């Protein structure tokens, strides 16, 4: 970038929310410009000095992050309106693309806000349980190596297994609707969690879970549970909810071929359903 184009401050607008079910509000921060910053370092700078543009001292912004190299899936948020990982969102790049010169941060809209940019994504993991995203081995004693697999098989499976449960695909999917259950006064954690799980259980599982079902159905041992996974895909909230907008594949930071997996699962459930009907 040419030096003269560099702004002296980075203007950051953050959508904040103090707790679940509360009203959201915006705050503006000005961060002195430095080269090679990413969103995480900007948030770290705000945390170290949480003072708004108007000079107001505020509570530091809450956000999630972990690996800082786009493999853990923690740091998903909306940046200038689009969902992505904030650790790999470089300020210089964002400023190039944003004519307003502003960086706008919002929590994901499809998950209940816990606080500020932190959202509750338990539903993602619940969906993995639903599609039995694991290889059902007998146990962990030494039984020798697994079945031999061709390079082609490995090269097909590896990309699918890179899913880091970040939820980008879900945020962008027009068919994935937010499920938010507000905790009632005096409700125990246990009872509340059960209600949340019940509500999640009939809502769309999402492309990431469909992809995992395809992954494990293609594993030489995993395929022994194929029928159960296909069954799960046809339950309420299953693959049928997909409307083929293909946003998921467009935003997945791991470039997972989600729509290929969806089509594959589509074929498998069709065959499965027809077979079941005539059996």
């Amino acid at each position, binding site marked *: 970038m040419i030096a003269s184009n560099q702004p002296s401050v980075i203007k950051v607008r953050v959508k904040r929310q103090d707790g679940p079910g509360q009203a959201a509000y915006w705050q503006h921060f000005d961060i002195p410009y430095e080269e090679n910053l990413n969103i995480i370092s900007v948030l770290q700078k705000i945390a170290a000095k949480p003072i708004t543009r108007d000079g107001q001292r505020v509570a530091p912004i809450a956000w999630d992050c972990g690996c800082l190299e786009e493999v853990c899936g923690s740091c998903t948020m*909306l940046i200038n*309106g*689009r*969902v992505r990982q904030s650790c790999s969102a470089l300020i210089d790049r964002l400023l190039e693309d944003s004519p307003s010169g502003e960086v706008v941060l919002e929590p994901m809209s499809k998950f209940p806000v816990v606080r500020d940019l932190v959202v509750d994504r338990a539903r993602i993991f619940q969906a993995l349980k639903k599609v039995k995203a694991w290889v059902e081995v007998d146990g962990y004693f030494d039984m020798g190596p697994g079945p031999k697999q061709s390079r082609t098989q490995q090269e097909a499976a590896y990309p699918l297994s890179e899913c880091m449960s970040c939820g980008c695909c879900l945020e*962008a999917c*027009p*068919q994935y*609707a937010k499920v938010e259950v507000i905790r009632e006064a005096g409700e125990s954690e246990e009872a509340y969690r*059960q209600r949340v*799980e*019940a509500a999640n*259980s*009939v809502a769309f599982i999402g492309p990431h879970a469909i992809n995992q079902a395809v992954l494990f159905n293609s594993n030489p041992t995993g395929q022994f549970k194929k029928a159960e996974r296909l069954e799960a895909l*046809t*339950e*309420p*909230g*299953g*693959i*049928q*909810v*997909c*409307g*083929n*907008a*293909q*946003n998921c594949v*467009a*935003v997945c930071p791991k470039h997972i*071929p989600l*729509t*290929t997996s*969806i*089509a*594959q*699962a*589509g*074929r*498998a*459930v*069709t065959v499965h*359903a027809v077979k079941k009907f005539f059996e």
Partner: protein
Amino acid sequence: MTNELTFIQKHEFLLRRIHSLTGLVPVGLYMCVHLITNASILNGVEAFQNAVYAIHSLGNALVFVEWGAIFLPLLFHAIFGVYIAYSGQFNTSSYGTAKNWRYVAQRITGLIAFVFIVSHVAHMHGWFHVGFWEKLMHSLGLAQFRAYNAASTAAMAMQANIVWPILYAIGIAASVFHFANGVWTMGITWGVWISPAAQKRADRICAAIGVGILLIGFSALGGFMTLDAQKAEDIENRMYTESVNTGRVVPNAKKLTNPKLLEEQAGTAKP
């Protein structure tokens, strides 16, 4: 987890698959046949009238075919389609990819098609062939089509004012887009085309089919808009008399524009 599932939730998969299927057969297929039939007007009034005779040779069974194989599946597809459309959330402002726009367009064209088809059937067919209803429709300038004066009634209906042709043009375009794009998404839903490359190939084929059908649909529309209705009616009446004589059509006053005239002719012809 004690969960009360709604009927739709419980049968979501099946309902979605039936919805998908009804989009192709019978509804989509019917639309194609229908547009092609209409386009036979380009081969002359006789050709079109013959096509209509063929359909109406079903006689009293026609009403069952119409409702069982077309209207009911269509209504199911349409109503459930509206439900589906409302259950999604458009987000093209953030994710403006072509695929996402098509997802939106699929829903909007579905709604347009719904409005169009309801009015189109009312305009031409009238929905129900029951006395008082027919009178009501006629008084509203609807239920204009007469099967034994097929081309002329259609042409007159289209030429009555400029609103109808515009509505038809939009409606046909929307329906055809909806069908072509729908076939493509259906191929993914059912797992016919899987890899990105295959999906792209299928996409081109669906687009080509769409353009083809659209041309056919528009040429039919153009055909009716430019038809000389008076001449057409004369031809149809002649055909009617002949066909009744040969036993090809069952006489039915309701399917005629001007039954009295033909009754007289018939009276003189038949001793």
